[in-house]
């Protein structure tokens, strides 16, 4: 992996975006011939020959603009001096990029710019990395004949409202790159150029400070700014980086590729990598700016142990902690049996690390009690897509959306939860694709700058399956199905069964109208739109899977895609938006009680034999416990020990009362994490973990894209997470002796057909690889099911509607659903320890004005939220985003207690919790709930026990 550590150099910029074309043109630039795709600009063609034409307003992530007038060139036969950035290369063109006339003009242009620019280069934050400096040098500027006494903008005030970057308008050259980045790259349109001529200036929203504007702090403007006008605060503080390593973000399932720009072992800034195939040089506020948690003071860096959760923690050596944990686990197995312990792998840790945890459970614990967070989010995707298409993964790459004609987003909020993909989606919508949104809430995607959904199917929570069945009913009853595709690619008997089922009157939009709350006409129109599109693509999220019929809905989506022939090429597909940075990976790595790596069932003797030969142990042939089963068994006294890596069930799993009861019943809970999270408050052993900056490995994103994670600093606690698992395994008597994660990946590749061709060398060479990667697909597989489905023929599965048990009653007349916000990430363990708190420092309850009025609730009031599971208190946010009868909240802060209220209802096939439907009552209160008060006291207690440990060590040392 050493190839990717390059000394610092600003990323190459070819001036204008790449263009794809069937046709090529051949032109001559300064005597050199070059062939480029038709549509490429002269500037880019010159750059490809190695000639950099001077420029300021052009950059290759944005369409050309032609405002700075620096890039003028001479073209034989063309009058005047065209700008090379806006001039398309034509066959036979002869271009001169440099001569005395051009040099003179460029110097004059620079002279104008510098006449109104601060001359504090030596103390300016972009000294050494400033395109204005570069251009002044490139054109040979020697004097500014205007002098500096005239009117200028040097007194313009800085805007430091945003915690991550500074806007210094005195340095602005009004190149409009920031405005264009906010439009084209991000799609938020928060910036504009206010005024004309000399009065032109960059304005955020209505001339407001950035923080008060519509800016979402993605940093695209900061990245493209050629001067010091928009600069990262970390750069201002630390100075220019000196080396770079390319790595992958540890937040969401987009898996943005980043250049970690370093000074020694300190990160100066994270810049999205232009060659990242998932993000193409863009990112969101979290990946770019919110990495400070890795060095936060609350990081725990020494192992801790204690006998009981009411005892103070004791700081001990690694050897002692591992020994203590191993003895406890072995003791439990001796006393209660082999199946009394288990492990939970992390969807935030690397593939290599999760592989080792499931190997630890199977080889060292000797059972199949291993599970991962996918249980609570996309396990229905695994079940549903495996069953219908044959593979537990999305079918396309993100770029596929650029070829879609109709896009249907169901139960997902991409502009908040998968922001970089959301921006790409908006790009395609602005270019003319149509949009259908199915969501109980009016998410941003329904209506935002230059975007309006053609249909917003605002269904009642819990009615996904009737909706998708009704849409399929329209397709079949109106003859819109793709008959040839179905006959050729799908099992005909199953199709015929499904066809008769769907065409039943009870599945019609008319019959389902009162169930879903959506007018039959609207459903018909939306279904027709999707079915008649040349390319129809479906994107979905947890609003599909976190339901009692989550698996059924996934199958319903796959059925609809198969019925309309929307699979097997670009621009279509079934796209689950996986949440975590490596949840796809942890699933791929067999972190399931019933599956070995590669989604192969433990009952298959051939698969078991393969692993048994490599691992030298016998593997159980029957499934183990899922996380909810582990909790039930813990409460029943049968399950006593748990090794948890990077997962916080006490905050993220539903029915908090039940989870904490289960955790309290364990005799040995081992938590391996960065911080003392909610689950760690119930632990007996705390093993400090390592962040993504502190280790080597790979993450797999929602596109099945395996990307490298590269170590840029030493682990604060001394070990990478995989080394800790290895140590525990050795202490338990199952030897592991890997010296580098590449060896773990080699083992994975040996044992898993879909990973057969994956090596670290290939990752270095290609940048990233989408699995399957094997002999048939040496460089990976962007689009799946092209010739045939992974299971051969696609299988239509019946999807009858079974209403959830969770019904509204007189006592609980409202339905609560949950979701996420852009600035915070899931349980907030990372983002709450960064300046992202600026945007969202508490979870609030969205409630419709009618419901609020009935209850005497006004904006900002404390509202009690009660369900049959429990009660909590949140502040009210009165809004029409939710419909009457539905309330909504996020779950980023543990003290919100959102999960105290969610129930133990779950998906029939996978036990994925039904977070999205809880019957509740809301009422005005004057104080926090009993649970919240207990939680506060318990938290205080546990923090106190932690401080005692630190004090004890200081005493010994001091």
């Amino acid at each position, binding site marked *: 992996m050493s190839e990717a550590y390059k000394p610092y150099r600003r990323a190459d910029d070819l001036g204008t975006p790449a263009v794809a074309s069937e046709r090529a043109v051949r032109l001559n630039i300064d005597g050199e011939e070059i062939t480029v795709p038709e549509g490429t600009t002269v500037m880019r063609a010159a750059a490809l020959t190695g000639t950099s034409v001077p420029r300021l307003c052009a950059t290759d992530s944005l369409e050309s603009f032609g405002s700075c007038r620096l890039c003028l060139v001479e073209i034989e036969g063309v009058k005047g001096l065209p700008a090379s950035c806006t001039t398309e290369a034509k066959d036979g063109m002869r271009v001169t990029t440099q001569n005395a006339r051009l040099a003179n003009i460029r110097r004059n242009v620079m002279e104008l710019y510098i006449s109104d620019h601060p001359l504090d280069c030596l103390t300016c934050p972009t000294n050494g990395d400033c395109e204005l400096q570069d251009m002044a040098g490139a054109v040979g500027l020697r004097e500014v004949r205007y002098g500096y006494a005239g009117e200028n903008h040097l007194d313009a005030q800085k805007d430091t409202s945003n915690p991550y970057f500074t806007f210094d308008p005195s340095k602005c050259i009004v190149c409009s790159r920031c405005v264009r980045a906010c439009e084209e790259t991000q799609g938020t349109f928060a910036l504009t150029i206010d005024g004309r001529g000399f009065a032109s200036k960059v304005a955020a929203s209505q001339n407001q400070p950035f923080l008060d504007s519509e800016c979402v702090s993605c940093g695209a403007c900061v990245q493209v700014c050629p001067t010091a006008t928009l600069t990262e605060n970390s750069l201002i503080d630390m100075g220019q980086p000196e080396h770079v390593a390319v790595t992958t973000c540890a937040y969401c399932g987009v898996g943005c590729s980043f250049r970690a720009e370093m000074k020694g072992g300190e990160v100066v800034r994270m810049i999205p990598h232009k060659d990242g195939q998932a993000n193409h040089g863009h990112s969101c506020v979290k990946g770019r700016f919110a990495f400070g948690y890795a060095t936060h003071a609350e990081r725990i860096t020494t192992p801790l142990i204690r006998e009981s959760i009411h005892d103070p923690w004791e700081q001990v050596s690694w050897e002692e902690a591992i020994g203590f944990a191993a003895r406890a686990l072995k003791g439990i197995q001796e006393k209660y049996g082999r199946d009394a312990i288990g492990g939970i792998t992390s969807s935030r840790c690397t593939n290599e690390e999760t592989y080792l945890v499931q190997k630890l459970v199977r080889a060292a614990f000797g059972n199949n009690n291993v599970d991962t967070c996918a249980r609570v989010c996309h396990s229905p995707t695994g079940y549903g897509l495996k069953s219908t298409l044959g593979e537990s993964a999305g079918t396309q790459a993100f770029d596929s959306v650029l070829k879609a004609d109709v896009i249907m987003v169901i139960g997902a909020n991409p502009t908040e939860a998968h922001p970089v993909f959301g921006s790409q989606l908006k790009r395609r919508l602005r270019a003319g694709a149509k949009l259908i949104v199915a969501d109980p809430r009016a998410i941003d995607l329904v209506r935002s700058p230059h975007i309006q959904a053609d249909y917003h199917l605002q269904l009642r929570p819990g009615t996904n399956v009737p909706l998708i069945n009704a849409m399929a009913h329209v397709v079949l009853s109106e003859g819109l199905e793709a008959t040839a595709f179905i006959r050729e690619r799908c099992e005909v008997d199953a199709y015929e069964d499904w066809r008769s089922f769907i065409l039943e009157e009870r599945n019609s939009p008319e019959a389902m109208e009162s169930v879903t709350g959506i007018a039959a006409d609207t459903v018909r129109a939306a279904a027709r739109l999707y079915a008649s599109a040349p390319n129809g693509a479906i994107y979905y999220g947890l609003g599909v899977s976190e339901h009692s*019929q989550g698996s059924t809905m996934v199958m319903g989506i796959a059925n609809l895609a198969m019925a309309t022939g929307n699979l097997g090429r670009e621009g279509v597909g079934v796209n689950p938006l996986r949440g975590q940075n490596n949840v796809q990976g942890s699933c791929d790595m067999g972190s399931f009680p019933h599956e070995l790596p590669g989604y192969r069932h433990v009952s298959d003797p051939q698969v078991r034999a393969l692993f048994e030969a490599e691992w030298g142990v016998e593997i159980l042939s029957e499934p183990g*416990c899922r996380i909810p*089963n582990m909790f039930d068994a813990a409460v*029943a006294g049968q399950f006593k020990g748990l090794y948890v890596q990077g997962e916080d069930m006490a905050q993220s799993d539903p029915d908090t009362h039940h989870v904490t009861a289960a955790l309290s019943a364990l005799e040995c809970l081992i938590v391996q994490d960065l911080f003392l999270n909610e689950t760690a408050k119930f632990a007996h052993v705390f093993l400090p973990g390592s962040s993504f900056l502190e280790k080597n490995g790979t993450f797999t994103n929602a596109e099945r894209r395996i990307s490298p994670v590269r170590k840029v600093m030493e682990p604060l606690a001394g070990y990478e997470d995989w080394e800790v698992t290895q140590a525990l395994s050795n202490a338990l008597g199952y030897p592991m002796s890997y010296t580098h994660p590449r060896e773990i990946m080699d083992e994975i590749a040996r044992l898993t057909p879909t990973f057969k061709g994956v090596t670290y060398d290939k990752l270095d060479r290609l940048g990233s690889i989408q699995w399957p990667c094997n002999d048939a697909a040496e460089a990976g597989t962007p689009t799946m099911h092209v010739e045939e489905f992974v299971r051969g023929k696609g299988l239509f599965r019946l999807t009858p509607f079974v209403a959830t048990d969770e019904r509204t009653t007189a006592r609980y007349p409202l339905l609560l659903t949950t979701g996420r916000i852009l600035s915070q990430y899931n349980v907030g363990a990372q983002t709450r320890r960064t300046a992202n708190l600026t945007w969202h420092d508490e979870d609030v309850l969205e409630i419709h004005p009618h419901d609020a009025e009935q209850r005497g609730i006004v904006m900002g009031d404390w509202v009690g939220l009660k369900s049959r599971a429990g009660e909590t208190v949140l502040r009210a946010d009165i809004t029409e985003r939710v419909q009457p009868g539905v309330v909504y909240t996020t779950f980023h802060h543990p003290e919100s207690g959102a999960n105290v209220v969610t129930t*133990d209802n779950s998906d029939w096939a996978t036990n994925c919790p039904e977070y999205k439907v809880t019957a509740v009552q809301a009422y005005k209160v004057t104080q926090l709930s009993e649970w919240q008060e207990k939680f506060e006291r318990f938290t205080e207690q546990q923090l106190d026990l932690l401080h005692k440990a630190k004090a004890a060590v200081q005493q010994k040392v001091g």
Partner: protein
Amino acid sequence: MEAAKLVRMANQIAANFDYGPDQAKAVAGVVDHMRRFWSPMMLEELVEHQAKGDGGLTAVAQMAVTQIAQERRAAR
């Protein structure tokens, strides 16, 4: 593990397979599902619960559990 919870889970699975006239197919679906995804501990507890005569299982679920009980007895 609380038997009541296992009964609920079994009934839920059964409800999702029991939609047509072909009851045998529904039972087969439930049996296959529980065999593939339930741990032996869970299966045994549910079988025991049924053997004790404690109620709660719907018709299809009953038949599925009976079949599983037979299979497990034969395997021993």
